[in-house]
């Protein structure tokens, strides 16, 4: 059984079809990149996969459960238990330290564990910045805190929306290295990006256009 399966998924906003009968399968441990021009439906697909939104039509099977039929309370639980989210704008709580930002995810998942949160920060190379507020961190560091927050609950699937969109090249490389480590450790990764270099690192690239899958590329040289 695939970890994630989209079957004829459509998302319709009035006259606009943001997603038009999209079907996609993602296996456990796979690293998939989703590319496409602005308005192609990347973010809509990401919101549906991450249980932040529901499709208008079709099935979305995550671990065999059709999340398209779940209510908002259940979707919150699925998101909390199975999904790690990484955002382009980082979305850190500005009045909490890096460590506390990681612990927030633990708190809403189960129990906050400072040692475990510190481990996650150590993994992203920010142990010494644990007590800093987001405003005291660089963009790359904030994105690494965001990754630490996403991985601290050991999610089955990590979803990253333009994770390097706001980063310089050096920080982009750091983040990609982290993704490689996570991939090696068996984490399933789905990364939405407009950057071909970021997409190239993934095992497979899905190219969306006008809400449909235009092309699917298997990257031969997974870096």
């Amino acid at each position, binding site marked *: 059984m695939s970890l994630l399966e989209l079957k004829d998924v459509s998302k319709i906003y009035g006259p606009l079809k943001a997603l038009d009968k999209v079907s996609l399968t993602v296996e456990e441990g796979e690293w998939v990149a989703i590319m496409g021009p602005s308005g192609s439906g990347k*973010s809509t697909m990401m919101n549906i996969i991450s249980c932040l939104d529901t499709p208008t039509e079709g099935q979305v099977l995550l671990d065999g459960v059709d999340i398209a039929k779940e209510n908002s309370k259940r979707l919150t639980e699925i998101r909390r238990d199975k999904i790690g989210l990484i955002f382009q704008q980082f979305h850190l709580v500005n009045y909490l330290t890096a460590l506390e930002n990681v612990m927030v995810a633990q708190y809403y998942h189960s129990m906050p564990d400072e040692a475990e949160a510190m481990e996650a920060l150590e993994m992203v190379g920010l142990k010494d910045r644990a007590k800093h507020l987001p405003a005291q961190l660089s963009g790359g560091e904030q994105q690494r805190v965001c990754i630490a927050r996403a991985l601290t609950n050991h999610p089955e699937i990590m979803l990253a929306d333009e994770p390097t969109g706001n980063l310089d090249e050096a920080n982009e490389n750091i983040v990609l290295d982290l993704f490689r480590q996570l991939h090696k450790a068996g984490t399933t990764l789905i990364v939405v990006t407009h950057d071909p270099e970021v997409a190239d690192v993934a095992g497979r690239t899905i190219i969306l256009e006008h809400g449909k899958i235009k092309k699917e590329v298997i990257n031969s040289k997974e870096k």
Partner: protein
Amino acid sequence: MFLRMVKGALTRQKGKMVMIAFTILLGASLATAMLNIMFDVGDKVNQELKAYGANIIVKPKDNSVLEDLYEVDGEDEIQSSYLQENEIGKIKTIFWTYSIVDFAPFLETTADVNGTAVTVTGSWFNHHLSLPSGEELDAGIVGLRSWWDIEDGQWLDEKVNPDGIMVGTTLAQTLGIRAGDRITLTTDNASKNLLVVGIYNSGADDDDQMITNLDIVQELANTGDLISSIEVSALTSPDDELAQKAARDPMSLSVSEYEVWYCTAYVSSICYQIQEVIPDAVASPVRQVADSEGAIMEKTQLLMILITILSLLGSALGISNLVTASVMERSNEIGLLKAIGAKDGAVSSLVLTEILITAVIGGIAGYFVGYGFAQIIGKSVFDSSIEMKPIVIPIVSVLIILVTLAGSIPAIRMLLKMKPAEVLHGR
């Protein structure tokens, strides 16, 4: 973690929280000031109204019956019986003793002054009483006729002027009397040479009379220790249906009604209690004064209640705007918390806890600011301080929590409707 988040939100968003606390402070201060004034205004207005004279008159029972029979008013009294002067102090032994502000006995006679027959009233001016309860007080017409204008001389002091007399301005002009003159009052029973200590202007019929110490008139009238009436000034509660029912017939009340009526400072219950301690007397309210007091009290309290409600409504609107603005500003944070697994209840309780802690801080500060407002209003309107009633603290606490919660409803509804996908991805 919850407390860390609350603490973080409070300490690292000081500006926003200070604004919310300030709004709550304003609401709490207005509510505190208005409620304290509302609870205290009764006493204050009552005390103001006491300057306009007595609201209860006590007469001998037989006299009262005769007056009712022949339908005569106070000006044409049929004086056939009297009260004992030594019974006056009993008025201060009734259940509502602290509502009795002042009282004075009266006895009238006619005396000859330089060939002219004049009405002379005997009363207490500043009569010192030592009650069996140990209470010491001064009672008399100095307090009861506080609106009298002393045109010449001064008020009679019983201790300084035991042979003093005060003369009404009209009579003084007729007889050519001035303060400092000595006059002789003669009756069939006695003759008294008295010092005129003051000329008063009452603006009423009293200006055609003289008034002196009670014992002098008792001697002139040869009545011994008797008096014809007592005027009492009492702080009373406005009449309601129960008071009106009791005024018609106290015996028609049920046991529980009777207890409520007896333990409320209605003018009728105070009259009833005076009759209990002076059985030969009939105490009756001076209806015009009592009714006016009741009407003024009711209207003043209604005004205060309306101001309190309006100030709280204003606060609720202010809180509502600020909390809604705060939630809108924090929409990314709230969306994020929901995205990482926080349920609606958890996010709502986080925001509400922050607001309620801010409300408590603002409320405590508001109470003390309200105390200041109340004192300023008290000094400017009543020329005295407003007594802070302890009952206001729980009332204001409950009101502030309710107003804060009510003011937070639009923000919480917005928070519940907020979809993380929309705020985080802008769709």
